[in-house]
Every structure is written in structure tokens, then in C-alpha cells.
């Protein structure tokens, strides 16, 4: 036993004598009308949006920017309205969206086949892992020159690159999700005697749905970017197509107002898919099931 085992260190009492007089500030008061309005999220964001638009319009009007280089907001909105009325814009939108839908659906189909194989056998799982690690880093757009060689200058080349951009993102994410499904859930499935396809759709898909949704979102983002890019490249070579082609063609002809109109539509479609479509799917599935806060 050492001596200092019984030593007790007592800290000296510390007293703060410098406490000033406590001030009485507003503890509770009704917010002014302005403060209450500024607390509404939507109002703040909308006014920022309006402010940006106003700054754009004022900048182009006051600085007298060459409209060919940077058109004013009103001119761009006018161009958008005009192309909507003449039916040019809806036609272009439909061309792009149609290719996107076909490519997305076909990509999902291919991914589903590969995944089913991967779940059922170890060889399939290895093949999927090898393929995704090889093709996921490859930008789909770089396959466009080859696609044009194989399928000619037409919609099928675009569908090919769209499939490529969707397939690997979805397959990778879904596979990771399936592998993360807990052993308990798997055993519940086996206990019910589920095998093969019913096992995948009744156990793995619902349990891995959060990852599947991430994969679908990433796949959409890549597909949308690839498709617009592919239409631009096409623009340089052939001469028909959807929104991307419109951006390119109008840019070439220095119809800059129409370029901005087309860009605006690209943004609107992107927003609709991401914030309306996927958001709703999320709310109706993983948010409702309590898998995501």
C-alpha cells in the first residue's frame, strides 16, 4: 500500500463575484407581420427566385447585353411561350421523353434479369459484380460513337446509350441492397418456403427497396444527362431529335432565346421527375414503411 492512497484532494470553493445585474430582454413578444411572413419558407424562396429573375432582366436591359449572347428573361419566356403554342416544344419534349422511357424500361429489364441470376447463383453474382465494376465507371456517352456505328444514326443508338447508363447504376445499387438484407428476413422467407422469384419479390425487393430507389434515382440522373448529351453529339452529326438537339441547333443558329427556352424545359422535366415522381414513390413506399425518416 502506498502512502498517497489515503490523500484526498479537495478543490477550494470557487465563488464568482462578478455577476452583473441580469438584464430583462424580450422574453416573449408577438412577431411583427414582416417577421411572420419571412418565416414562411415558400415565401422566402419564391422571393429569392423573383429577385434572381429581376436581376437577370435588369442586367440585360440596363447593361444592354447583346441578346445573341445573353437574352433577357422576358425574351426567353416569350420564346418558350411561342414554341409551346406552335407545338414545336411539345413535339421535341415527346421525342426526348419517349427515348428516355424506352431506354429506362429496357435498362430496368436487363438489370432485373442480371440481378435474378445474381441472387440465384454464385456465378451470376460474380458475373454481375465483374460487369458492374467494369462498366459503371465508363460514361455511357463514350459508347455513342460505337452505337452510331452499330445501330446507325437513329433512335436506337440513343436507346442503347440510355440503357447502358441506367443498367449498371441500378444493378449495382440493387445488388448492394439485396446483400444488405438481414439474415433474419431471409430466414423468415425460407421458413415460408419461398424460393426463386417469389423469394426475390416478397423478401429481397421490399427489404432492399431503399437501395433500389437510390439506384433508380442515380440511373435516372445518369440517363437524363446522357440522353441530352447524346442528342447534342447527334446534333453535330445528323439533324433531328429532341430537347438536346434543340439546344444544339438553336445555339448553332444563334437563336439564343430558344436555347434558354429549351434549357428551361430541361430543368422543368428534371424537377418534375426528381421532386414529384421520385418524391411520391418515396413517400408511398419507404417513408410509409418507416425505413426512412
Amino acid at each position, binding site marked *: 500500500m502506498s502512502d498517497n492512497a489515503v490523500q484526498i484532494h479537495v478543490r477550494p470553493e470557487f465563488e464568482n463575484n462578478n455577476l452583473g445585474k441580469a438584464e430583462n430582454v424580450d422574453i416573449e413578444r408577438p412577431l411583427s407581420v414582416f417577421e411572420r411572413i419571412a418565416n414562411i419558407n415558400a415565401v422566402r424562396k419564391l422571393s429569392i427566385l423573383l429577385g434572381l429573375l429581376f436581376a437577370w432582366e435588369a442586367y440585360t436591359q440596363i447593361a444592354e447585353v447583346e441578346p445573341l449572347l445573353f437574352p433577357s428573361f422576358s425574351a426567353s419566356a416569350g420564346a418558350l411561350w411561342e414554341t409551346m403554342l406552335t407545338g414545336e416544344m411539345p413535339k421535341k419534349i415527346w421525342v426526348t421523353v419517349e427515348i428516355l422511357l424506352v431506354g429506362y424500361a429496357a435498362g430496368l429489364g436487363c438489370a432485373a434479369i442480371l440481378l435474378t441470376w445474381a441472387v440465384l447463383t454464385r456465378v451470376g453474382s*460474380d458475373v454481375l459484380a465483374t460487369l458492374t465494376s467494369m462498366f459503371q465507371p465508363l460514361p455511357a*456517352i463514350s459508347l455513342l460513337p460505337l452505337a452510331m456505328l452499330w445501330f446507325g444514326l437513329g433512335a436506337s443508338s440513343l436507346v442503347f446509350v440510355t440503357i447502358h447508363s441506367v443498367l449498371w447504376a441500378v444493378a449495382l445499387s440493387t445488388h448492394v441492397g439485396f446483400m444488405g438484407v438481414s439474415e433474419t428476413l431471409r430466414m423468415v422467407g425460407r421458413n415460408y418456403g419461398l424460393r426463386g422469384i417469389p423469394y426475390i419479390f416478397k423478401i429481397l425487393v421490399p427489404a432492399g427497396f431503399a437501395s433500389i430507389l437510390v439506384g433508380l434515382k442515380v440511373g435516372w440522373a445518369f440517363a437524363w444527362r446522357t440522353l441530352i448529351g447524346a442528342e447534342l453529339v447527334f446534333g453535330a452529326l445528323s439533324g433531328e431529335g429532341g430537347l438536346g438537339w434543340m439546344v444544339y441547333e438553336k445555339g448553332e443558329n444563334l437563336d439564343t432565346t430558344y436555347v434558354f427556352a429549351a434549357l428551361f424545359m430541361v430543368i422543368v422535366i428534371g*424537377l418534375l421527375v426528381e421532386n414529384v415522381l421520385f418524391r411520391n414513390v418515396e413517400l408511398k413506399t419507404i417513408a410509409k414503411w418507416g425505413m426512412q425518416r
Partner: protein
Amino acid sequence: MPEEPAIKGELHVRSEIVNEIGQAGTGEVERRLSVVERLSNIDPLRKFTILIIMVVVWELYARIGEINELMFPTFSATGTALIDALVNASLLVNVWNSLKLLLSGYAIGIGIAAILVILAVGSRIGSDLLTTLTAMLNPLPAIALLPMAMLWFGLGPGAIIFTLLHSIIWPVALNTHTGFQSVSETLRMVGGNYGLRGLRYIFKILVPAAFPSILTGLRIGWAYAWRTLIAAELVFGGQVVDTSGQLGAEGSNSGGLGWIIFESQMENQTPYVFAGLFMVILVGITVENGFFRNIEEKTVRKWGMQKA
């Protein structure tokens, strides 16, 4: 109140079920794995075999099917083309050209994103501005801005860097901002307790705490930027064909990887297209598995923020 049963006092006794158990078969409870089984349990070996099989199938298909080399070259032709391009045509210079653009765009983009996010952390107006901008511009594919960029900055690296910036800023800013917002109140208060404010608060508390989302943002930014760069070089390729232009024509080595792919395809040298694609894959794998994986190991994994 639960409904009262009609008859009281009657007990339902389930009849005893006796399951006739057959003779238990004694299977192999434990045995040594054969050599083949042990080999096939090695993960890299299996994947490598699959890779080799795919290459063999490719080679056989192209040879036996007598596919036109212009449409689908054999693996050996692609390999030869790759070596030839690396040795004689200095393909690495083209790779470096692409990477140089990408790196400068990435660095500037992260800088701009950092400024936006710092503004957003500092004030409510900044935060609103950032969310509005990202919500609007994130869904816009950067490549769609290329025609405007070519108009504003001319046919040159300026236009490409502008589009790259656009593809990097929004995903990085968006992910960093959401990451910052979900930093727990406890950690924030620890920072406040230490008297950290402004930049020191951001870099000592928010950045480490939100590092997983920041890393995700950086990864997405890289993926978009890499795709945008290749696409932009392809579009430039189309421009150059029209206008006997600027990016590739002034010397065989001035373009990037996308341009090489485009040029080889225009000259019907399909094996070189495949060689270019191979380099694209290689760069992608190196950055994703080499670079980002390493950062992940050294930060979020080491700190225990992410499981294997």
C-alpha cells in the same frame, strides 16, 4: 368491451398432434473441401476467371463469326491498338489533357461550392439562396450548357471548364449542405461551448461531422464531371469536323480522351475506339477505387462513421 362468448365455461382442447419422424439421415457433417472447391472459394480467382472467359468469348465471337473489324474488332486487335496508341501515339498525353481540364474544373468547382455553402451556413438568406439555386440547377445536365458556353467562351478549354464547373458545384454544394444540416445538436453545442465561430466552427465541427455526405458529394461531382467532360469532347469533335477546328486539328496530341474516341471512330479505326474506351474505364476505376476508396479508408472508416 370485448364481446362475451355465447357459452361460458366450455374449454376447447386441441387434440394432440404426434408427428411421425422418419429416420434421420446422417449427411456429411464435416469433410475436407476438395482442391477445386477451395480454389473456387477465392473471390479474386473467380472474378478473374470470369473476366478471362469473357475475353475468350469476345475473341472467339469476333473471329469465328467473322465480324467486320470496323464493326467489332477482336480482343487481340484492341490490345495491339492500345499498346500501339500508348507507345507510338502517346495516348497518355491525351489522358493527361483530359485530366488536366478535369482537375482544374474540379478544384475551382469545389472552391465555389465551398463559398456558397459557407454563405449558407452563415445566414438564412444564404441558405435559402443555395437551396433555390441547387434545386433549380442540379436537374439541369451540365452538357446542355455547352452550346451557350461555346458562344460565351469560344471553342476552347474555357467552355469545357465552364460546363465542368456546373456539373461539380451543385451536387457538391447540395450534399455538403444537407450533411451540415443533419449534424447533431450535441456536436454543434460542443463547438459553441468551445467558443468556435465562423470558419473555425465550420472546419472543426461541421466538416468532420458531415464528412460522409461531403465525400458522397465529391464522388457524385466527380462522376458527373467525368461524364460531362467526355461528352463535351465528343461534341467538340462534331464541331471540329464541321469547322476544321481548333481542339484537335492543331497537332495530334492536343485533344483529350473523348476527342480521341471520336476521331478514331471518324477515321474508322474501331480498335482504337476500343482502346480509348479501355483507358476511360481505367481512369474511372483508378479514381473511384484508388483515390476515393483511400480517402474513405483514411477518414470516415477510420473515424468509425461508416461500417465496411
